[in-house]
Protein backbone atom coordinates (compact mmCIF):
# COMPACT_ATOMS: atom_id res chain seq x y z
CA UNK A 1 0.00 0.00 0.00
CA UNK A 2 2.76 2.41 0.95
CA UNK A 3 4.34 4.52 -1.77
CA UNK A 4 6.25 7.76 -1.89
CA UNK A 5 3.65 9.33 -4.16
CA UNK A 6 0.89 8.46 -1.78
CA UNK A 7 2.87 9.91 1.11
CA UNK A 8 3.57 13.09 -0.81
CA UNK A 9 -0.05 13.50 -1.78
CA UNK A 10 -1.12 12.92 1.79
CA UNK A 11 1.36 15.50 3.03
CA UNK A 12 0.20 18.13 0.56
CA UNK A 13 -3.44 17.45 1.27
CA UNK A 14 -2.66 17.62 4.98
CA UNK A 15 -0.98 20.99 4.70
CA UNK A 16 -3.86 22.36 2.66
CA UNK A 17 -6.35 20.95 5.14
CA UNK A 18 -4.30 22.33 8.02
CA UNK A 19 -4.40 25.81 6.56
CA UNK A 20 -8.17 25.56 6.46
CA UNK A 21 -8.29 24.25 10.04
CA UNK A 22 -6.44 27.37 11.10
CA UNK A 23 -9.29 29.48 9.75
CA UNK A 24 -11.83 27.45 11.70
CA UNK A 25 -9.77 27.70 14.88
CA UNK A 26 -9.00 31.42 14.80
CA UNK A 27 -12.29 32.25 16.45
CA UNK A 28 -11.55 29.89 19.33
CA UNK A 29 -8.06 31.28 19.70
CA UNK A 30 -9.56 34.75 19.99
CA UNK A 31 -12.47 33.92 22.25
CA UNK A 32 -11.00 31.17 24.41
CA UNK A 33 -7.29 31.91 24.21
CA UNK A 34 -7.45 35.68 24.54
CA UNK A 35 -10.79 36.53 26.14
CA UNK A 36 -11.30 33.45 28.31
CA UNK A 37 -14.76 33.00 26.83
CA UNK A 38 -15.21 29.29 26.26
CA UNK A 39 -17.27 29.53 23.13
CA UNK A 40 -17.85 25.87 22.41
CA UNK A 41 -20.50 26.96 19.91
CA UNK A 42 -17.89 28.34 17.52
CA UNK A 43 -18.09 25.37 15.12
CA UNK A 44 -21.85 25.83 15.02
CA UNK A 45 -21.32 29.43 13.90
CA UNK A 46 -19.00 28.10 11.21
CA UNK A 47 -21.78 25.84 9.97
CA UNK A 48 -24.12 28.80 10.03
CA UNK A 49 -21.57 30.53 7.80
CA UNK A 50 -21.62 27.54 5.45
CA UNK A 51 -25.39 27.69 5.11
CA UNK A 52 -25.37 31.46 4.59
CA UNK A 53 -22.89 30.93 1.77
CA UNK A 54 -24.93 28.04 0.42
CA UNK A 55 -28.09 30.15 0.28
CA UNK A 56 -26.62 33.06 -1.67
CA UNK A 57 -24.57 30.74 -3.85
CA UNK A 58 -27.47 28.54 -4.87
CA UNK A 59 -29.90 31.42 -5.26
CA UNK A 60 -27.76 34.12 -6.86
CA UNK A 61 -24.72 32.16 -7.96
CA UNK A 62 -22.47 34.34 -5.83
CA UNK A 63 -18.92 33.11 -5.46
CA UNK A 64 -18.61 31.32 -2.10
CA UNK A 65 -15.55 33.27 -0.96
CA UNK A 66 -17.18 36.58 -1.85
CA UNK A 67 -20.27 35.42 0.02
CA UNK A 68 -18.20 34.45 3.06
CA UNK A 69 -16.57 37.87 3.12
CA UNK A 70 -19.86 39.64 2.51
CA UNK A 71 -21.44 37.99 5.51
CA UNK A 72 -18.61 38.94 7.84
CA UNK A 73 -20.15 42.25 9.01
CA UNK A 74 -23.43 40.52 9.84
CA UNK A 75 -21.58 37.81 11.75
CA UNK A 76 -19.58 40.47 13.52
CA UNK A 77 -22.78 42.03 14.80
CA UNK A 78 -24.15 38.64 15.74
CA UNK A 79 -20.97 38.03 17.74
CA UNK A 80 -21.29 41.35 19.53
CA UNK A 81 -24.88 40.52 20.42
CA UNK A 82 -23.98 37.06 21.71
CA UNK A 83 -21.11 38.46 23.76
CA UNK A 84 -23.37 41.13 25.27
CA UNK A 85 -25.81 38.49 26.46
CA UNK A 86 -22.96 36.34 27.79
CA UNK A 87 -21.36 39.31 29.52
CA UNK A 88 -24.54 40.59 31.14
CA UNK A 89 -25.89 37.23 32.20
CA UNK A 90 -22.78 35.28 33.15
CA UNK A 91 -19.44 37.05 33.02
CA UNK A 92 -20.50 40.03 35.11
CA UNK A 93 -22.15 37.80 37.68
CA UNK A 94 -18.99 35.71 37.90
CA UNK A 95 -21.02 32.70 36.85
CA UNK A 96 -19.33 31.88 33.59
CA UNK A 97 -17.77 28.54 34.39
CA UNK A 98 -20.82 26.32 34.64
CA UNK A 99 -23.78 28.23 33.30
CA UNK A 100 -21.83 30.16 30.68
CA UNK A 101 -20.71 26.85 29.19
CA UNK A 102 -24.23 25.53 29.22
CA UNK A 103 -25.40 28.73 27.53
CA UNK A 104 -23.06 28.13 24.59
CA UNK A 105 -24.05 24.49 24.51
CA UNK A 106 -27.65 25.61 24.15
CA UNK A 107 -26.61 27.86 21.28
CA UNK A 108 -24.97 24.95 19.44
CA UNK A 109 -28.15 23.13 19.79
CA UNK A 110 -30.41 25.95 18.67
CA UNK A 111 -28.31 26.65 15.56
CA UNK A 112 -28.08 22.99 14.66
CA UNK A 113 -31.74 22.18 15.06
CA UNK A 114 -32.85 25.41 13.39
CA UNK A 115 -30.75 24.54 10.33
CA UNK A 116 -32.10 21.02 10.47
CA UNK A 117 -35.68 22.26 10.45
CA UNK A 118 -35.02 24.66 7.61
CA UNK A 119 -32.77 22.60 5.35
CA UNK A 120 -33.14 19.01 6.54
CA UNK A 121 -30.40 16.46 7.00
CA UNK A 122 -29.28 16.42 3.36
CA UNK A 123 -25.77 17.44 2.48
CA UNK A 124 -25.55 20.83 0.75
CA UNK A 125 -22.74 22.11 -1.42
CA UNK A 126 -21.77 25.19 -3.41
CA UNK A 127 -20.89 25.74 -7.05
CA UNK A 128 -18.04 27.74 -8.47
CA UNK A 129 -16.20 27.32 -11.74
CA UNK A 130 -12.85 26.55 -10.15
CA UNK A 131 -14.07 23.99 -7.63
CA UNK A 132 -13.12 20.63 -9.03
CA UNK A 133 -10.08 21.80 -10.97
CA UNK A 134 -6.57 20.77 -10.17
CA UNK A 135 -3.39 22.74 -10.65
CA UNK A 136 -0.17 20.89 -11.30
CA UNK A 137 2.83 22.28 -9.39
CA UNK A 138 5.81 20.18 -10.41
CA UNK A 139 5.01 16.61 -9.44
CA UNK A 140 2.24 17.64 -7.08
CA UNK A 141 -1.36 18.13 -8.02
CA UNK A 142 -3.22 20.69 -5.94
CA UNK A 143 -6.99 20.45 -5.99
CA UNK A 144 -8.36 23.97 -6.00
CA UNK A 145 -11.20 22.72 -3.84
CA UNK A 146 -8.53 22.56 -1.09
CA UNK A 147 -5.96 24.99 -2.43
CA UNK A 148 -8.18 28.06 -2.51
CA UNK A 149 -9.61 27.59 0.98
CA UNK A 150 -6.08 27.14 2.26
CA UNK A 151 -4.88 30.31 0.57
CA UNK A 152 -7.85 32.32 1.85
CA UNK A 153 -7.37 30.84 5.31
CA UNK A 154 -3.73 31.85 5.32
CA UNK A 155 -4.69 35.36 4.28
CA UNK A 156 -7.24 35.53 7.08
CA UNK A 157 -4.70 34.23 9.57
CA UNK A 158 -2.10 36.71 8.45
CA UNK A 159 -4.63 39.54 8.59
CA UNK A 160 -5.62 38.69 12.12
CA UNK A 161 -2.00 38.29 13.13
CA UNK A 162 -1.21 41.76 11.82
CA UNK A 163 -4.30 43.21 13.43
CA UNK A 164 -3.40 41.81 16.84
CA UNK A 165 0.26 42.66 16.62
CA UNK A 166 0.32 46.00 14.87
CA UNK A 167 -2.80 47.94 15.75
CA UNK A 168 -3.99 49.66 18.87
CA UNK A 169 -7.19 47.71 19.04
CA UNK A 170 -5.34 44.48 18.42
CA UNK A 171 -2.96 45.07 21.29
CA UNK A 172 -5.88 46.03 23.49
CA UNK A 173 -7.60 42.77 22.59
CA UNK A 174 -4.53 40.84 23.69
CA UNK A 175 -4.30 42.88 26.87
CA UNK A 176 -7.91 42.75 27.94
CA UNK A 177 -7.99 39.26 29.42
CA UNK A 178 -4.59 39.72 31.04
CA UNK A 179 -5.69 42.73 33.06
CA UNK A 180 -8.93 44.51 32.26
CA UNK A 181 -8.47 46.97 35.10
CA UNK A 182 -5.07 48.08 33.87
CA UNK A 183 -6.60 48.61 30.45
CA UNK A 184 -9.18 50.94 31.97
CA UNK A 185 -6.31 52.94 33.43
CA UNK A 186 -5.05 53.44 29.88
CA UNK A 187 -8.40 54.97 28.98
CA UNK A 188 -9.93 51.95 27.22
CA UNK A 189 -13.28 50.39 27.94
CA UNK A 190 -12.72 46.62 28.37
CA UNK A 191 -16.28 45.65 27.49
CA UNK A 192 -16.02 47.48 24.17
CA UNK A 193 -12.73 45.78 23.45
CA UNK A 194 -14.26 42.41 24.17
CA UNK A 195 -17.24 43.24 21.98
CA UNK A 196 -14.82 43.92 19.18
CA UNK A 197 -12.79 40.78 19.76
CA UNK A 198 -15.74 38.47 20.07
CA UNK A 199 -17.40 40.08 17.07
CA UNK A 200 -14.23 39.41 15.08
CA UNK A 201 -14.10 35.83 16.31
CA UNK A 202 -17.60 35.17 15.01
CA UNK A 203 -16.87 37.12 11.81
CA UNK A 204 -14.05 34.66 11.05
CA UNK A 205 -16.67 31.89 11.32
CA UNK A 206 -18.50 33.34 8.35
CA UNK A 207 -15.50 33.03 6.08
CA UNK A 208 -14.42 29.72 7.58
CA UNK A 209 -17.92 28.43 6.90
CA UNK A 210 -17.66 29.45 3.25
CA UNK A 211 -14.34 27.58 3.02
CA UNK A 212 -15.82 24.54 4.72
CA UNK A 213 -18.68 24.17 2.27
CA UNK A 214 -16.23 24.65 -0.60
CA UNK A 215 -14.07 21.78 0.60
CA UNK A 216 -16.97 19.42 0.89
CA UNK A 217 -20.73 19.15 1.35
CA UNK A 218 -22.14 20.22 4.70
CA UNK A 219 -25.03 19.11 6.88
CA UNK A 220 -26.22 20.73 10.13
CA UNK A 221 -24.52 18.43 12.64
CA UNK A 222 -21.13 18.39 10.98
CA UNK A 223 -19.98 21.18 13.29
CA UNK A 224 -19.64 18.71 16.12
CA UNK A 225 -16.74 17.06 14.33
CA UNK A 226 -14.89 20.33 14.61
CA UNK A 227 -15.26 20.80 18.34
CA UNK A 228 -12.44 18.41 19.19
CA UNK A 229 -10.32 19.78 16.38
CA UNK A 230 -10.57 23.46 17.14
CA UNK A 231 -9.93 23.05 20.83
CA UNK A 232 -7.03 20.68 20.19
CA UNK A 233 -5.57 23.32 17.89
CA UNK A 234 -6.18 26.24 20.26
CA UNK A 235 -4.69 24.39 23.22
CA UNK A 236 -1.78 22.92 21.27
CA UNK A 237 -1.15 26.32 19.68
CA UNK A 238 -0.53 27.87 23.07
CA UNK A 239 -3.87 29.54 23.81
CA UNK A 240 -4.15 32.89 22.14
CA UNK A 241 -1.21 32.83 19.77
CA UNK A 242 -2.14 33.22 16.11
CA UNK A 243 1.19 31.83 14.92
CA UNK A 244 0.81 28.90 17.29
CA UNK A 245 -2.70 28.27 15.99
CA UNK A 246 -1.43 28.06 12.44
CA UNK A 247 1.38 25.67 13.33
CA UNK A 248 -0.93 23.49 15.41
CA UNK A 249 -3.53 23.47 12.64
CA UNK A 250 -0.93 22.38 10.09
CA UNK A 251 0.31 19.60 12.38
CA UNK A 252 -3.21 18.37 12.92
CA UNK A 253 -4.06 18.61 9.23
CA UNK A 254 -1.02 16.57 8.23
CA UNK A 255 -1.61 13.95 10.94
CA UNK A 256 -5.25 13.59 9.94
CA UNK A 257 -4.37 13.36 6.28
CA UNK A 258 -1.76 10.68 6.93
CA UNK A 259 -4.18 8.78 9.12
CA UNK A 260 -6.93 8.89 6.59
CA UNK A 261 -4.60 7.93 3.74
CA UNK A 262 -3.09 4.95 5.49
CA UNK A 263 -5.87 3.83 7.84
CA UNK A 264 -9.01 5.12 6.22
CA UNK A 265 -10.87 8.44 6.46
CA UNK A 266 -13.18 7.29 9.23
CA UNK A 267 -10.25 7.22 11.66
CA UNK A 268 -9.18 10.80 11.04
CA UNK A 269 -11.52 12.20 13.69
CA UNK A 270 -9.84 10.21 16.42
CA UNK A 271 -6.57 12.05 15.80
CA UNK A 272 -7.68 15.42 17.09
CA UNK A 273 -9.13 13.96 20.21
CA UNK A 274 -6.02 11.94 20.86
CA UNK A 275 -3.93 15.08 20.52
CA UNK A 276 -6.27 17.07 22.72
CA UNK A 277 -6.06 14.50 25.49
CA UNK A 278 -2.32 14.20 25.11
CA UNK A 279 -1.84 17.94 25.43
CA UNK A 280 -4.17 18.18 28.41
CA UNK A 281 -2.42 15.27 30.09
CA UNK A 282 1.13 16.40 29.46
CA UNK A 283 0.50 20.11 29.92
CA UNK A 284 3.68 21.51 28.38
CA UNK A 285 5.15 24.17 30.61
CA UNK A 286 3.70 27.61 30.07
CA UNK A 287 0.57 26.39 28.39
CA UNK A 288 -1.48 26.52 31.53
CA UNK A 289 0.72 28.89 33.42
CA UNK A 290 -2.07 31.34 33.96
Amino acid sequence: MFSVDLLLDALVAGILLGGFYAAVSLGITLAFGLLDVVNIAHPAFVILGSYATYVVNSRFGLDPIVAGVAFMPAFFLLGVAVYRVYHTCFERRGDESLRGLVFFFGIIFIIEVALLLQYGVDYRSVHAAYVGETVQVGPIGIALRLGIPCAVALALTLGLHLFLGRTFYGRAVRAVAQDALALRLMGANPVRIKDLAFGLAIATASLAGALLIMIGPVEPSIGREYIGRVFAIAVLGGMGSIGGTLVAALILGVLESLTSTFYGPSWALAVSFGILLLVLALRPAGLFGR
Partner: protein
Amino acid sequence: MSGRRLLAMAGGVTVLAVALTRLVDNQYYYFAGYVILQYVVLATAWNILGGYAGYVNFGSAGFFALGAYTAAVLIKAVGAPLPVLVIAAGVVSGLLGLSIGALTLRLRGVFFAIATLALAVVLQTLIVNWEYVGGSRGLYTIRPARVLFFGNYVEFLFVVMVVLAVAALTIAWRIEHSWVGRGLAAIRDNEEAAECMGVPTLRLKLLAATVSGALMGVAGAPFPYYITYMEPASTFNLDYAVNSLAMPMIGGTTTWVGPLVGAVLLGSAQQIATVTISSALNLLIVGMLLVVFVIVAPDGLVGLVRRRRSRG
Protein backbone atom coordinates in the same frame (compact mmCIF):
# COMPACT_ATOMS: atom_id res chain seq x y z
CA MET B 1 -35.06 10.27 55.61
CA SER B 2 -33.17 7.31 57.06
CA GLY B 3 -31.50 4.64 55.00
CA ARG B 4 -34.15 2.07 55.91
CA ARG B 5 -37.05 4.28 54.96
CA LEU B 6 -35.33 5.06 51.71
CA LEU B 7 -34.97 1.38 50.97
CA ALA B 8 -38.63 0.82 51.79
CA MET B 9 -39.64 3.60 49.46
CA ALA B 10 -37.47 2.24 46.69
CA GLY B 11 -39.00 -1.18 47.14
CA GLY B 12 -42.47 0.33 47.19
CA VAL B 13 -41.98 2.15 43.92
CA THR B 14 -40.74 -1.03 42.26
CA VAL B 15 -43.68 -3.08 43.48
CA LEU B 16 -45.99 -0.35 42.28
CA ALA B 17 -44.40 -0.45 38.85
CA VAL B 18 -44.83 -4.21 38.65
CA ALA B 19 -48.44 -3.87 39.71
CA LEU B 20 -48.89 -1.28 36.99
CA THR B 21 -47.94 -3.80 34.33
CA ARG B 22 -50.92 -5.91 35.43
CA LEU B 23 -53.28 -3.01 34.91
CA VAL B 24 -52.16 -1.10 31.84
CA ASP B 25 -52.31 -2.86 28.55
CA ASN B 26 -51.40 -0.20 26.01
CA GLN B 27 -47.81 -0.93 24.91
CA TYR B 28 -47.16 2.67 23.99
CA TYR B 29 -47.09 3.70 27.65
CA TYR B 30 -44.27 1.26 28.36
CA PHE B 31 -42.22 2.50 25.44
CA ALA B 32 -42.73 6.11 26.47
CA GLY B 33 -42.25 5.38 30.16
CA TYR B 34 -39.00 3.57 29.43
CA VAL B 35 -37.60 6.63 27.66
CA ILE B 36 -38.64 9.00 30.43
CA LEU B 37 -37.10 6.75 33.08
CA GLN B 38 -33.96 6.44 31.03
CA TYR B 39 -33.74 10.22 31.17
CA VAL B 40 -34.28 10.12 34.92
CA VAL B 41 -31.19 7.93 35.18
CA LEU B 42 -29.15 10.06 32.77
CA ALA B 43 -30.15 13.36 34.36
CA THR B 44 -29.46 12.05 37.85
CA ALA B 45 -26.10 10.69 36.73
CA TRP B 46 -25.14 13.95 35.05
CA ASN B 47 -26.10 15.88 38.14
CA ILE B 48 -23.76 13.94 40.44
CA LEU B 49 -20.77 15.57 38.77
CA GLY B 50 -22.37 18.57 37.05
CA GLY B 51 -24.79 19.69 39.73
CA TYR B 52 -23.10 18.62 42.97
CA ALA B 53 -19.53 19.47 42.02
CA GLY B 54 -20.06 21.99 39.21
CA TYR B 55 -18.12 20.15 36.50
CA VAL B 56 -19.97 20.10 33.19
CA ASN B 57 -20.09 16.93 31.13
CA PHE B 58 -21.14 17.40 27.51
CA GLY B 59 -20.46 13.82 26.55
CA SER B 60 -23.39 12.00 28.17
CA ALA B 61 -24.25 10.50 24.79
CA GLY B 62 -20.80 8.90 24.70
CA PHE B 63 -21.13 7.33 28.13
CA PHE B 64 -24.65 6.16 27.39
CA ALA B 65 -23.67 4.67 24.04
CA LEU B 66 -20.63 3.00 25.52
CA GLY B 67 -22.92 1.25 27.99
CA ALA B 68 -25.30 0.26 25.22
CA TYR B 69 -22.53 -1.12 23.01
CA THR B 70 -20.92 -2.94 25.92
CA ALA B 71 -24.24 -4.66 26.42
CA ALA B 72 -24.65 -5.34 22.71
CA VAL B 73 -21.21 -6.96 22.51
CA LEU B 74 -21.88 -9.14 25.54
CA ILE B 75 -25.23 -10.21 24.13
CA LYS B 76 -23.69 -11.05 20.79
CA ALA B 77 -20.61 -12.76 22.18
CA VAL B 78 -21.89 -14.77 25.12
CA GLY B 79 -25.57 -14.04 25.39
CA ALA B 80 -25.06 -12.60 28.84
CA PRO B 81 -28.15 -12.03 31.01
CA LEU B 82 -29.45 -8.55 31.76
CA PRO B 83 -27.98 -8.15 35.28
CA VAL B 84 -24.54 -8.92 33.89
CA LEU B 85 -25.08 -6.39 31.08
CA VAL B 86 -26.01 -3.68 33.57
CA ILE B 87 -22.97 -4.31 35.73
CA ALA B 88 -20.57 -4.55 32.80
CA ALA B 89 -21.94 -1.39 31.18
CA GLY B 90 -21.56 0.42 34.50
CA VAL B 91 -17.99 -0.75 34.96
CA VAL B 92 -16.88 0.17 31.44
CA SER B 93 -18.49 3.62 31.40
CA GLY B 94 -17.34 4.24 34.96
CA LEU B 95 -13.75 3.51 33.96
CA LEU B 96 -14.13 5.91 31.07
CA GLY B 97 -15.35 8.60 33.47
CA LEU B 98 -12.43 7.89 35.77
CA SER B 99 -9.83 8.11 33.04
CA ILE B 100 -11.17 11.28 31.43
CA GLY B 101 -11.38 12.75 34.91
CA ALA B 102 -7.84 11.72 35.79
CA LEU B 103 -6.55 13.42 32.66
CA THR B 104 -8.49 16.66 32.92
CA LEU B 105 -9.99 17.23 36.37
CA ARG B 106 -6.73 18.63 37.69
CA LEU B 107 -7.14 21.48 35.24
CA ARG B 108 -9.81 24.14 35.11
CA GLY B 109 -13.31 22.75 34.66
CA VAL B 110 -13.58 23.91 31.06
CA PHE B 111 -10.94 21.43 29.98
CA PHE B 112 -12.99 18.58 31.36
CA ALA B 113 -16.02 19.95 29.53
CA ILE B 114 -14.12 20.23 26.24
CA ALA B 115 -12.67 16.76 26.60
CA THR B 116 -16.11 15.23 27.13
CA LEU B 117 -17.44 17.19 24.18
CA ALA B 118 -14.82 15.65 21.91
CA LEU B 119 -15.06 12.26 23.56
CA ALA B 120 -18.53 11.46 22.24
CA VAL B 121 -17.47 12.21 18.66
CA VAL B 122 -14.41 10.01 18.94
CA LEU B 123 -16.21 7.10 20.59
CA GLN B 124 -18.69 7.28 17.75
CA THR B 125 -15.82 7.17 15.25
CA LEU B 126 -14.46 4.07 16.94
CA ILE B 127 -17.82 2.33 16.89
CA VAL B 128 -18.40 3.27 13.25
CA ASN B 129 -15.12 1.56 12.46
CA TRP B 130 -15.83 -1.55 14.48
CA GLU B 131 -17.18 -4.25 12.21
CA TYR B 132 -18.10 -6.61 15.05
CA VAL B 133 -20.91 -4.31 16.13
CA GLY B 134 -21.92 -3.65 12.56
CA GLY B 135 -20.08 -0.36 12.02
CA SER B 136 -22.29 2.41 10.75
CA ARG B 137 -24.83 -0.11 9.48
CA GLY B 138 -25.70 -1.09 13.02
CA LEU B 139 -26.77 -4.41 14.48
CA TYR B 140 -29.90 -6.27 15.48
CA THR B 141 -30.43 -7.69 18.90
CA ILE B 142 -33.11 -10.29 19.36
CA ARG B 143 -35.11 -10.07 22.54
CA PRO B 144 -35.40 -13.26 24.57
CA ALA B 145 -38.61 -15.04 23.59
CA ARG B 146 -40.22 -14.86 26.98
CA VAL B 147 -39.53 -13.61 30.45
CA LEU B 148 -40.78 -15.10 33.62
CA PHE B 149 -43.79 -13.41 35.15
CA PHE B 150 -44.11 -10.58 32.60
CA GLY B 151 -46.61 -10.61 29.79
CA ASN B 152 -44.10 -9.31 27.28
CA TYR B 153 -40.55 -8.09 27.13
CA VAL B 154 -41.26 -4.36 26.91
CA GLU B 155 -43.17 -4.49 30.18
CA PHE B 156 -40.17 -6.25 31.68
CA LEU B 157 -37.76 -3.60 30.31
CA PHE B 158 -39.99 -0.91 31.73
CA VAL B 159 -39.75 -2.45 35.19
CA VAL B 160 -36.00 -2.85 34.81
CA MET B 161 -35.78 0.85 34.04
CA VAL B 162 -37.91 1.63 37.09
CA VAL B 163 -35.43 -0.32 39.20
CA LEU B 164 -32.45 1.44 37.59
CA ALA B 165 -34.04 4.86 38.06
CA VAL B 166 -34.82 4.10 41.68
CA ALA B 167 -31.27 2.85 42.15
CA ALA B 168 -29.80 5.98 40.53
CA LEU B 169 -31.94 8.26 42.68
CA THR B 170 -31.00 6.29 45.78
CA ILE B 171 -27.31 6.60 44.97
CA ALA B 172 -27.71 10.32 44.31
CA TRP B 173 -29.59 10.70 47.59
CA ARG B 174 -26.94 8.78 49.49
CA ILE B 175 -24.14 10.85 47.97
CA GLU B 176 -25.95 14.09 48.60
CA HIS B 177 -26.45 13.29 52.26
CA SER B 178 -22.96 11.97 52.96
CA TRP B 179 -19.58 13.53 53.52
CA VAL B 180 -18.93 12.97 49.82
CA GLY B 181 -21.87 15.10 48.74
CA ARG B 182 -21.07 17.83 51.23
CA GLY B 183 -17.48 17.79 50.03
CA LEU B 184 -18.62 18.09 46.43
CA ALA B 185 -20.84 21.04 47.35
CA ALA B 186 -17.85 22.69 49.00
CA ILE B 187 -15.86 22.16 45.79
CA ARG B 188 -18.67 23.75 43.79
CA ASP B 189 -18.82 26.77 46.11
CA ASN B 190 -15.09 27.38 46.41
CA GLU B 191 -12.61 24.74 45.43
CA GLU B 192 -9.54 26.33 47.00
CA ALA B 193 -11.25 26.87 50.33
CA ALA B 194 -12.54 23.29 50.20
CA GLU B 195 -9.04 21.91 49.71
CA CYS B 196 -7.80 24.00 52.65
CA MET B 197 -10.61 22.64 54.83
CA GLY B 198 -9.37 19.10 54.34
CA VAL B 199 -11.59 18.11 51.43
CA PRO B 200 -9.64 15.79 49.10
CA THR B 201 -10.89 17.68 46.07
CA LEU B 202 -9.27 15.66 43.30
CA ARG B 203 -10.32 12.33 44.77
CA LEU B 204 -13.91 13.41 45.27
CA LYS B 205 -14.12 14.76 41.74
CA LEU B 206 -12.75 11.50 40.38
CA LEU B 207 -15.21 9.55 42.47
CA ALA B 208 -18.08 11.69 41.17
CA ALA B 209 -16.86 11.36 37.57
CA THR B 210 -16.70 7.58 37.96
CA VAL B 211 -20.13 7.18 39.55
CA SER B 212 -21.68 9.61 37.09
CA GLY B 213 -20.15 7.85 34.09
CA ALA B 214 -21.10 4.43 35.44
CA LEU B 215 -24.75 5.39 35.89
CA MET B 216 -24.90 6.75 32.35
CA GLY B 217 -23.53 3.46 31.11
CA VAL B 218 -26.09 1.59 33.20
CA ALA B 219 -28.84 3.64 31.57
CA GLY B 220 -27.61 2.37 28.21
CA ALA B 221 -27.34 -1.30 29.17
CA PRO B 222 -30.93 -2.38 28.34
CA PHE B 223 -30.94 -0.19 25.23
CA PRO B 224 -30.08 -2.93 22.67
CA TYR B 225 -33.12 -4.92 23.81
CA TYR B 226 -35.34 -1.88 23.86
CA ILE B 227 -34.43 -0.61 20.42
CA THR B 228 -33.58 -4.06 18.91
CA TYR B 229 -31.91 -2.38 15.95
CA MET B 230 -29.04 -0.21 17.12
CA GLU B 231 -26.78 2.00 15.00
CA PRO B 232 -24.21 4.64 16.02
CA ALA B 233 -26.03 7.74 14.78
CA SER B 234 -29.06 7.19 16.99
CA THR B 235 -27.17 5.72 19.93
CA PHE B 236 -24.83 8.72 20.08
CA ASN B 237 -27.75 11.04 19.48
CA LEU B 238 -27.33 14.60 20.64
CA ASP B 239 -30.65 14.22 22.47
CA TYR B 240 -28.90 12.36 25.24
CA ALA B 241 -26.18 14.95 25.70
CA VAL B 242 -28.62 17.85 25.66
CA ASN B 243 -31.35 16.32 27.74
CA SER B 244 -29.17 14.86 30.45
CA LEU B 245 -27.85 18.35 31.06
CA ALA B 246 -30.95 20.38 30.30
CA MET B 247 -33.15 18.34 32.63
CA PRO B 248 -31.13 18.99 35.79
CA MET B 249 -30.49 22.60 34.79
CA ILE B 250 -34.22 23.16 34.31
CA GLY B 251 -35.26 21.14 37.33
CA GLY B 252 -32.52 22.40 39.65
CA THR B 253 -29.02 21.10 40.19
CA THR B 254 -28.33 21.18 43.91
CA THR B 255 -30.53 18.29 45.02
CA TRP B 256 -31.60 14.89 43.72
CA VAL B 257 -35.14 16.21 43.21
CA GLY B 258 -34.18 18.64 40.44
CA PRO B 259 -33.09 16.09 37.82
CA LEU B 260 -36.09 13.93 38.65
CA VAL B 261 -38.53 16.81 38.22
CA GLY B 262 -36.74 18.02 35.07
CA ALA B 263 -36.62 14.56 33.51
CA VAL B 264 -40.25 13.75 34.24
CA LEU B 265 -41.55 17.11 33.02
CA LEU B 266 -39.32 17.52 30.01
CA GLY B 267 -39.31 13.83 29.17
CA SER B 268 -43.12 13.58 29.23
CA ALA B 269 -43.49 16.79 27.27
CA GLN B 270 -41.14 15.44 24.63
CA GLN B 271 -42.95 12.13 24.43
CA ILE B 272 -46.19 13.97 23.84
CA ALA B 273 -44.59 16.45 21.43
CA THR B 274 -42.91 13.72 19.38
CA VAL B 275 -46.32 12.31 18.63
CA THR B 276 -47.99 15.64 17.95
CA ILE B 277 -45.25 17.82 16.41
CA SER B 278 -41.93 17.02 14.80
CA SER B 279 -39.18 15.66 16.99
CA ALA B 280 -36.67 18.20 15.69
CA LEU B 281 -38.91 21.06 16.69
CA ASN B 282 -39.37 19.74 20.16
CA LEU B 283 -35.59 19.50 20.54
CA LEU B 284 -35.33 23.11 19.46
CA ILE B 285 -37.73 23.96 22.23
CA VAL B 286 -35.56 22.07 24.74
CA GLY B 287 -32.54 24.03 23.57
CA MET B 288 -34.33 27.34 23.95
CA LEU B 289 -35.75 26.39 27.33
CA LEU B 290 -32.24 25.49 28.42
CA VAL B 291 -30.83 28.87 27.41
CA VAL B 292 -33.74 30.73 28.94
CA PHE B 293 -33.50 28.83 32.22
CA VAL B 294 -29.76 29.27 32.48
CA ILE B 295 -30.22 33.02 32.13
CA VAL B 296 -33.44 33.64 34.03
CA ALA B 297 -33.72 30.88 36.63
CA PRO B 298 -30.23 29.63 37.36
CA ASP B 299 -31.51 27.50 40.25
CA GLY B 300 -34.12 25.75 38.14
CA LEU B 301 -37.71 24.94 39.02
CA VAL B 302 -36.81 23.62 42.47
CA GLY B 303 -35.04 26.90 43.16
CA LEU B 304 -38.06 28.89 41.96
CA VAL B 305 -40.44 26.94 44.18
CA ARG B 306 -38.12 27.26 47.15
CA ARG B 307 -37.77 31.00 46.67
CA ARG B 308 -41.52 31.44 46.36
CA ARG B 309 -42.06 29.39 49.51
CA SER B 310 -39.52 31.30 51.58
CA ARG B 311 -41.08 34.55 50.44
CA GLY B 312 -44.67 33.48 51.03
